[in-house]
């Protein structure tokens, strides 16, 4: 359905002149207006558009902040404070950027779990999924380095702890880890040199994300969107043109999401941060309780759950790496968990595990939290490495609808179709 033949007709002489030289209007028309979209996609499919808007918003606010920010150990914290106090609307733009990063991650986590539930990673969408994971990685890099730029206590010690992860490689080749860490720092400890390179890279990474997003959308438009049934559109009756159908739904969802965004920007701007980051960085005092930004907490919990340093680091990176292999780990023939009565329960177990790990990552490294973190870490990996391959083979799926239209017309009242609308 995706490689639908072009229906664009230039309506004026100018449009025709352009179309023969740079068919950009044809591209937009074919990919954004007439592009066939499954007519049964629900609100969980609006997060792609929301993410695109937030990427642009982060770029714009970030470029503005860079006009006022000074990337030096002596002035970074002061310049952020100056933005908050003295720059015209500085508080607004800084709050938008800081809260925007959190909203970006909320949206991306919903987007990823939607993909997991409805099997959007399965053939022929493997490349689409992997590109998405690369975007996720780049986002984490951008978020981590951006938090460092504030140069408060949490910034400084977060960078110290996370860059020190690489020193665990000393356990494989003595000296390798230390060499890498000193290379990252540009010195023997985290310093202004480190801050300066983080600033440079923090400015670069979002443009890399833009490039990856272009590829992600390109790949999406090759295969077309998945939908809640996981059954590919078969006839034109199964789809609607993207405009005005998907676009109107996307726009509504986007504004609903903006409501939450504005709530935090105007009424809770510091809620998602940490008070310690309003203390300037001090290399001689470690805060009693170092926590990363909330969106890293599940991975941080996995790191701390393992008593061995190298083991913890391997598990933490492994938790991200395993996501890249999901298209081949899942052995089920069925895409959507809606028709997978057993797997569905495991999916919710995974959601609970990730939420629990997030909570445990914010707790101190002591009992009983460590034991619980180990249990949920074990399930996190078991889900991908054991449940996905095995349940896919053992489970007897529910009968799939013949087509999307069938599901919409016959299935409206059946339990399969309506039970998951609230997702």
């Amino acid at each position, binding site marked *: 359905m995706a490689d639908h033949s072009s229906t664009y007709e230039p309506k004026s002489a100018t449009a025709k002149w352009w179309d023969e030289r740079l068919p950009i209007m044809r591209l937009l028309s074919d990919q954004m207006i007439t592009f066939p979209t499954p007519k049964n996609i629900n609100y969980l499919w609006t997060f792609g558009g929301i993410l695109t808007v937030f990427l642009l918003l982060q770029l714009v606010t970030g470029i503005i902040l860079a006009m006022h920010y000074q990337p030096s150990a002596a002035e970074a914290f002061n310049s952020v404070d100056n933005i908050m106090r003295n720059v015209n609307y500085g508080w607004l733009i800084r709050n938008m950027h800081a809260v925007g990063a959190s909203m970006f991650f909320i949206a991306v986590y919903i987007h990823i779990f939607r993909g997991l539930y409805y099997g959007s990673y399965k053939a022929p969408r493997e490349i689409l999924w992997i590109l998405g994971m690369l975007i996720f990685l780049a986002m984490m890099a951008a978020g981590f380095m951006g938090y460092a730029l504030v140069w408060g206590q949490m910034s400084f010690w977060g960078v110290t*702890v996370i860059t*020190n992860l690489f020193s665990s490689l000393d356990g494989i080749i003595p000296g390798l880890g230390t060499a890498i860490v000193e290379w990252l720092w540009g*010195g023997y400890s985290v*310093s202004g040199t480190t801050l300066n390179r983080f600033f440079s890279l923090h400015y670069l990474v979002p443009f890399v994300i833009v490039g990856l997003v272009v590829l992600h959308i390109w790949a999406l438009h090759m295969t077309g969107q998945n939908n809640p049934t996981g059954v590919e559109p078969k006839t034109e009756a199964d789809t609607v043109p993207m405009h005005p159908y998907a676009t109107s739904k996307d726009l509504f969802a986007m504004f609903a999401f903006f409501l939450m965004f504005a709530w935090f920007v105007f009424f809770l701007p510091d809620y998602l941060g940490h008070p310690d980051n309003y203390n300037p960085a001090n*290399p*001689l005092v470690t805060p009693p309780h170092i926590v990363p930004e909330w969106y890293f907490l599940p991975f941080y919990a996995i790191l701390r759950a393992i008593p061995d340093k190298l083991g913890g680091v391997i598990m933490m990176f492994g938790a991200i790496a395993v996501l890249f292999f999901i298209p081949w780990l899942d052995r089920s023939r069925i895409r959507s968990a809606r028709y997978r009565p057993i797997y569905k329960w495991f999916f919710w177990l995974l959601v609970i595990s990730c939420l629990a790990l997030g909570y445990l990552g914010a707790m101190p490294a002591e009992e009983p939290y460590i034991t619980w973190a180990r249990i949920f870490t074990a399930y996190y990996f078991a889900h991908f490495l054991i449940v996905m391959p095995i349940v896919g083979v053992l489970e007897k799926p529910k009968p799939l609808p013949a087509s999307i239209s069938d599901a919409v017309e016959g299935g409206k009242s059946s339990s399969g179709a309506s039970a998951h609308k609230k997702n």
Partner: protein
Amino acid sequence: MASDTKDPNRRDFLVVAGNTFAAIGAASLIWPFIAQMNPDAGALALSSIEVDLSPIKEGQAITAMWRGKPVFIRYRTAEEIEAAKKVALDDLADPIARNENLKDPASAPATDQNRTIEGHEKWLILIGICTHLGCIPEGQKISDARGDFGGYFCPCHGSHYDTAGRIRKGPAPRNLDVPVITFITDTKIKIG
């Protein structure tokens, strides 16, 4: 004599050689781009510092700064030395001394003797950075928590060090490092 253009082998060789040279040049250029991130000449300059130990009384500790890192200097009490000496090597999580001043720092056992400078065993001098993830352990100030083994305690992820700075419990993989130290006099040291 055949012209270059008519000899396919020779032409191929030149093309391959040219492309290879271009590739080598491009690849070589990567190195400066990577190496620039290493510590620069200013940071590398081995700044050693001298510390006067005479104001420190028994049971007290001070923190000196060396290469941007805190160095813990402690005048240990007799009980602390005794406690460190009593520990069997088998009880240590990391049995290696990690003392830059020894002849074989990579293999010497982490006895209390090997964790200090010969002839100055009452002084415990350590780089005050947790070998887990680089936090600064507590234990220098009197009001600090000193962990289950009476030495240092890292609040970040709960590593406990004993009175010779050896890791005894928690996720840290190594004993606290002993920097290069020279005793200029009995109460004056040079670090680095």
